[in-house]
């Protein structure tokens, strides 16, 4: 179980190790928890970035020069509603999650 040498030009090799260790960086399917989802009224959005700053999951992106200026990654949004709560313009509504997936 030799120490892996850091040589970026070499192909990564697998080494067997013993004991408890996590080796894969992955995600859980937290998007499936949602009972509500945030819906942004883009026309009222002032692109202040407050929602993005407070999203605990960090999946809100602000695109300042787009009409759809708030992009939410619904793969991971848990529907907590913090974005809606902190928005200074109250332009995010929490609506029921559509469909049963």
């Amino acid at each position, binding site marked *: *179980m030799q*120490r892996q040498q850091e040589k970026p030009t070499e192909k990564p090799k697998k080494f067997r190790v*013993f004991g*408890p260790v*996590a*080796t894969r960086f992955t995600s859980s399917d937290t998007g499936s928890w949602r009972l509500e989802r945030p819906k942004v009224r883009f026309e009222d959005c002032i692109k202040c970035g407050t929602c993005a700053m407070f999203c605990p999951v960090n999946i809100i992106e602000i695109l300042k020069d787009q009409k759809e200026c708030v992009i939410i990654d619904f793969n991971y949004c848990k529907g907590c509603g913090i974005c809606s709560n902190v928005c200074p313009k109250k332009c995010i509504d929490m609506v029921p999650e559509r469909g049963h997936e």
Partner: protein
Amino acid sequence: MTYKMLDGNSAAVEAMKLAKVQVISAYPITPQSSISEKLSDLVESGELKAEYIRVESEHTALSVATTAQLTGARSATATASNGLALMHEILSMTSGNRVPIVMPVVNRGIAAPWTLWCEHGDSIAQRDTGWMQFYSQNVQEVLDLTLTTYKIAEHGDVLTPAMVCIDGFFLSHSLQKVKVPTQEEVDKFLGKYVLKNTYLDPSDPMFICNLTPPEDFTEMRYQQKVGMDNAIKVIEEVQKEFLSKFGRKLHIIEGYKTDDADVVLLAMGSMTGTAKYVVNKMRSQGKKVGIAKLTVFRPFPFEHIKNLLGDKKVIGVFDRSAGLGGQGGPVWSEVSVALKEFDIDIRSYIGGLGGRDVPADTIEKIFDELLSIQNREKDTHTQWIDLKKNAMEIREVIKHV
């Protein structure tokens, strides 16, 4: 190679110094305190280049050593008695994460009752934690076992931490003439610490010791068992190499005049030195006795025990720990299982607790009992061999009735 007058603690420190330990986190406890002091002296004087972390408890001491070693430094700690008991939680952390720390344990009984003095109850109580255990007969062995244990524990097929047990006061504080190898010899023998298995390095990240599901836990414990199984072979190889390089023979189990012995006593620790003297004395009286000195208790060398003692008829096993609630002492239990396929009468002896000396008289008494059993003159033996007659009456309180 030079000769030095060293006590057991100093010998352990000498070995740790020669092994060039890089992080030290030792918390003082009688009779280990001089280990933490001497290491501190060596670091302050510059003789040993190491980070000395003056920890605030033994629990922290082993925690610091474990992660320091995972980060790439050969780490050192040492303890005794209640300190080892406090470390208990972390012992499993160290062994479960396959961190090969070598830790001198100065054997002293665990409270209650409070004792400052020698018995094996502290380390024996930790026999299930996945650590190897080596018991020293004399101060030379303390040095030699500590040195060899670094090589054994850090071996890629073993990766298991180890305790080097030193009888409290009898060895830790007794000055003996010790052959000390040179730094060059030890450098060639041990080499620098090489990170194997898992480690903490931002340039090569991994998350160590996170929650493990039932689907994997058994297999990880099995990996530890395989490490222990491999250790026996590795111990043999390393001890062989040590003999050729340093000229001193270490054992997994040493049979002293056991080949033709009628009865054999199996024991660990400093009392085996006294026992060898008793064997010589009784042999000169025509009694064919022998002493089996068990050096490696974990991994339990059942094959070696079978090979050495399988042809005997009567054996005694001396436990320097009480093994409360068991049928007999813990070492006796394990030896009995190892020898169960043979028709041997194996008697459990418990003594030398809480600092009580195991002098030649006691050992002679045991041998005489074993011989009587072997001659079919007796059928019983005195399990608690050095028990006082008024055992149940040694304390009285006065009350107003």
